[in-house]
């Protein structure tokens, strides 16, 4: 019998009946495995990426020297080590020039992860460096060169020691973005610290020990280290990495998982449809085999084997497709991804194969299994009813299987529920609407021309089958619309967050007397900058009179800590008021507006009283409002905003941010000479990095969309094919009776297009609902209705389904009717 199974498959393949079934399986396995491999590899790349922002896998930092014993222990565990020490210090050049810099001494091994960069001249071309400065050398921040009036090759002094300037320090992987105390960077060798004599007990310094190695060793070492940490020492790990890229990629991952889940649903439906048609066509074969003595068990074995063979081939092909897809994704990424993607392992392909198995068992097997019950009497009487009607049990089984697969695959029950809700709405609305509208067609049909009457009569004759078909079309169109909408709003949101002119430079420490001059100079250069915000350093001390704990433990949310305050008469442009009211510009009340995350961590709300220390003066203020803001916007953002009058007496500096093209960077030299006390922070490298990753993720999303569109198209083809047999027979008879080509094709076009129109309508309604749930609950985005998809859904629905229908039935007008009737 096995020969018969292969033969049967081969013949059905040639007959085109297996095409949709196989394609659906291959696409399902391919997208699921491909997307899963892609996200797995991306995740491991991201993990490395966050290590990069630490310059290591784990870091301990402290304001006092760290025990040597830890280094020995780490070395004993096979970890690589590096040490850094940061401190503020005056840097001297020549007779008079000096400037307060942020000095960082690094050991030869630094950095353990990520890349240190330098340039041969200030603001020059950035090159990677294998290690930091050697003994006796320093690298200076580009802006220190004009400030100290030195050039590469000249000498500068730090404390008691002198050093040769050998390069401009450009970026460090663990640079961070904290503004406070952010003086221009001086990099030196760790071994030169004693010679400077600037680090004394009680100096404001930060010691770091950096560790890197195999993930298990690092985890084990961190476990050993944690209990030994004392107050003032803290362990940083990957979670302290850069948040900006993280959230963009997190959403992209949600999107990709959503796309994969939809691929599973679409493929499931396509497989179910194709398997059903396959089994209908095989009823006669089974009858013949049974009349020749085949038992039900033998028939089951035959079709079971065929399915197994088919499944194995399609799964293999699907895994190959998946591998190709993820390779293509990374091809897109290759240039931009600063780290190599990790290995995907076999899990993605296991998930793909499991999807295939589930789809086959839950969608393809039920109709095929029922083939064994086909009556052998069909050899005598072909008009016997078909045995393989789908039962409620089949539908429930399929639904359950799809839900579980989606949940397993995305690991997110809210995402699963959002899609299921959309599907449920489609089915419910679909059945009501389709049945009502199809019934209502009778009246219209009487007054229409004959093509219309033919089409409407056809619609009504197959009322139930048509309603089911509308639902299937609607499901496919809905899933595609959901994906399209989510993709569009994701990409829009990213582009809005970081548009071309995203500020990429910050200026801080602008003295009140410099505000006007700075503003003027930026204007002269035609640089569009954000408003100048006052900035006051202060410390939160108490909530409602209760003193907050004094601790260095950064995991502690409620503690005394320093922040930047500002004042403002108005709510800053990209902030949104989440609670409370904005104050009157003239108010003299002691009020404060908090960022929502800050308020949450502190556990305070509107009306609570907070105690601050600004300089050495205490300050009390009542929480008047809570704001939400976009930390990734690269604009000056503040946790705490006060009314201007409240802070009028406190010493403030000002800050702003602006966008500077790479070609205009030399402007900074002039600017710094003009305002030597002002600090410029260059974020252009980071901004460009985030932007390019977002661009690449968008490209990956587009690619996935195309794959899913193909899966959706397949469902439409399968759906149309499912009804082609009956329509072909009628049309062939019509042709035999002398109907013209135009009448037959026109009737079919109208019939299919009407089904597509209804399907498009349902799909649009359900897609809106589904997108609402997805964006509000799953992707943490703002939902806005999308009126654009309404006409698109309707037009695409009728055009696609109408076109496909006519295409599938085109044979009816191109072949002699008799040949067709014999074939059917």
């Amino acid at each position, binding site marked *: 019998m096995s020969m018969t199974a292969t033969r049967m498959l081969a*013949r059905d393949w040639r007959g085109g009946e297996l095409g949709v079934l196989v394609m659906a399986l291959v696409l399902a396995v391919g997208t699921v495995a491909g997307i899963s491999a892609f996200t797995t590899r991306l995740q491991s790349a991201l993990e490395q990426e966050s290590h990069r922002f630490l310059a290591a896998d784990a870091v301990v930092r402290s304001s006092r020297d760290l025990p040597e014993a830890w280094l020995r222990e780490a070395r004993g565990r096979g970890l690589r080590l590096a040490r850094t020490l940061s401190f503020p210090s005056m840097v001297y050049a020549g007779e008079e020039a000096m400037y307060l810099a942020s000095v960082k001494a690094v050991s030869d091994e630094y950095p353990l992860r990520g890349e240190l960069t330098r340039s041969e001249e200030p603001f020059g071309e950035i090159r990677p460096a294998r290690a930091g400065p050697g003994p006796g050398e320093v690298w200076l921040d580009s802006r220190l060169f004009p400030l100290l009036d030195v050039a590469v090759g000249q000498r500068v002094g730090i404390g008691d020691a002198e050093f040769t300037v050998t390069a401009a320090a450009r970026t460090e992987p663990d640079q961070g973005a904290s503004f406070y105390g952010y003086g221009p960077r001086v990099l030196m060798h760790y071994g030169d610290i004693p010679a400077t004599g600037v680090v004394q007990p009680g100096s404001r310094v930060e010691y770091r020990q950096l560790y890197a190695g195999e993930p298990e060793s690092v985890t084990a070492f961190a476990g050993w280290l944690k209990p030994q940490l004392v107050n003032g020492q803290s362990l940083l790990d990957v979670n302290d990495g850069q948040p900006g890229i993280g959230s963009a990629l997190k959403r992209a991952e949600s999107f990709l998982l959503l796309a994969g889940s939809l691929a599973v649903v679409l493929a499931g439906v396509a497989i179910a449809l194709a398997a059903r048609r396959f089994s209908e066509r095989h009823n006669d074969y089974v009858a013949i085999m049974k009349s*020749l003595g085949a*038992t039900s068990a033998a028939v089951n074995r035959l079709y079971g084997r065929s399915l197994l063979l088919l499944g194995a081939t399609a799964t293999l092909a699907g895994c190959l497709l998946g591998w190709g897809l993820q390779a293509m994704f990374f091809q897109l990424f290759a240039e931009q991804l600063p780290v190599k993607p990790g290995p995907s392992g076999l899990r993605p392909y296991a998930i793909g194969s499991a999807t295939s198995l589930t789809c086959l068992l839950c969608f393809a097997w039920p109709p095929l299994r029922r083939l064994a019950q086909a009556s052998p009497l069909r050899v005598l009487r072909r008009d016997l009813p078909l045995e393989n009607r789908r039962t409620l049990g089949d539908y429930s089984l399929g639904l359950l299987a799809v839900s579980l697969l989606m949940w397993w695959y995305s690991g997110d029950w809210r995402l699963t529920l959002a899609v299921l809700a959309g599907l449920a709405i489609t089915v419910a609305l679909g059945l009501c609407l389709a049945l009502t509208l199809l019934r209502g067609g009778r009246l219209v049909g009487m007054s229409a021309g004959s093509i219309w009457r033919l089409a409407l009569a056809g619609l009504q004759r197959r009322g139930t089958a048509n309603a089911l078909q509308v639902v299937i079309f609607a499901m496919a169109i809905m899933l595609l619309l959901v994906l399209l909408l989510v993709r569009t709003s994701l990409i829009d949101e990213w582009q809005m967050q970081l548009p071309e002119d995203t500020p990429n430079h910050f200026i801080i420490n602008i003295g009140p007397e410099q505000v006007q001059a700075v503003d003027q100079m930026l204007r002269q250069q035609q640089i569009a900058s954000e408003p100048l915000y006052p900035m006051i350093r202060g410390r939160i001390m108490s909530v409602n009179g209760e003193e907050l704990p004094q601790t260095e433990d950064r995991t502690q949310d409620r503690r005394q800590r320093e922040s930047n305050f500002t004042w403002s008469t108005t709510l800053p442009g990209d902030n949104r008021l989440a609670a409370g009211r904005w104050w009157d510009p003239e108010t003299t009340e002691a009020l404060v507006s908090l960022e929502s995350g800050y308020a949450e961590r502190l556990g305070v709300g509107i009306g609570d009283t907070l105690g601050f220390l600004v300089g050495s003066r205490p300050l009390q203020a009542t929480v008047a409002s809570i704001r939400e803001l976009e930390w990734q916007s690269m604009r000056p953002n503040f946790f705490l905003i006060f009314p201007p009058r409240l802070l009028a007496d406190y010493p403030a500096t000002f800050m702003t941010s602006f966008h500077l093209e790479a070609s205009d960077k030399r402007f900074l030299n002039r600017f710094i000479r003009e305002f030597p006390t002002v600090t410029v922070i260059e974020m252009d490298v980071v901004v460009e990095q985030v932007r390019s990753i977002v661009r690449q993720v968008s490209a990956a999303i587009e690619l996935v969309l195309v794959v899913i569109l193909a899966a959706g198209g397949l469902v439409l083809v399968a759906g149309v094919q499912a009804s082609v047999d009956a329509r072909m027979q009628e049309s062939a008879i019509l042709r035999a009776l002398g109907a013209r080509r135009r009448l037959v094709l026109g009737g079919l076009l109208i019939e299919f297009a009407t089904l597509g129109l209804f399907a498009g309508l349902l799909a649009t309604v359900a897609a809106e609902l589904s997108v609402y749930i997805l964006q509000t609950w799953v992707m943490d985005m703002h939902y806005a209705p999308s009126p654009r998809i309404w006409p698109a859904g309707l037009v695409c629905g009728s055009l696609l389904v109408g076109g496909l229908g006519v295409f599938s039935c085109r044979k009816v007008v191109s072949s002699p009717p008799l040949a067709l009737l014999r074939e059917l």
Partner: protein
Amino acid sequence: MTGGELEILKGISLEIKSGESVAIVGASGSGKSTLLGLLAGLDQASGGRVVIGDTDLGQLDEDGRALFRGREVGFVFQSFQLLPALTALENVMLPLELQGQANAREQAAHYLERVELAERVSHYPRQLSGGEQQRVAIARAFAARPTILFADEPTGNLDTRTGSHIIDLLFELNREEGTTLVLVTHDQTLAARCERRLCIEAGELVAAA
């Protein structure tokens, strides 16, 4: 025999001897195909009994009847009922394979030679004419060495000349193999070649000749 509220066959009692050839004749819709279906175990009667040899078909379930058909019964149908996926040879091999016979290929080739189709073993049904297809069906029916052969309008889809050639072949093989032959037809010449004729009218046996 009643089928729900509609009685299709009623009060039919007949005995067919081993090796006998019997024609069941009657107009369209008289119930002759239904009778054939019941006799061959393709269908189950709502009342009454069908016994072939020692086997009461009513006592068997569908799978039991399938096994019985595979062992004892051969079929020739009006619409040939060949599997389009299989070649002529493979179609003839099918019942032998279902029975698990080892030399299916040789036996099938032998019977195809017997129906003068040795040249066309590797052709698919769609590449064969109607008469050739029916000869493949006859080879298939006899290859399994059935004790009883049922034929449903075997010439119904063929022209007169091809039809009579098919009939010659059918009777010749029947004689050689010693098979019991039951055929349903409304073709009086065909019926005349059988040893016994049963006439059925509105579900009742009206005359036996």
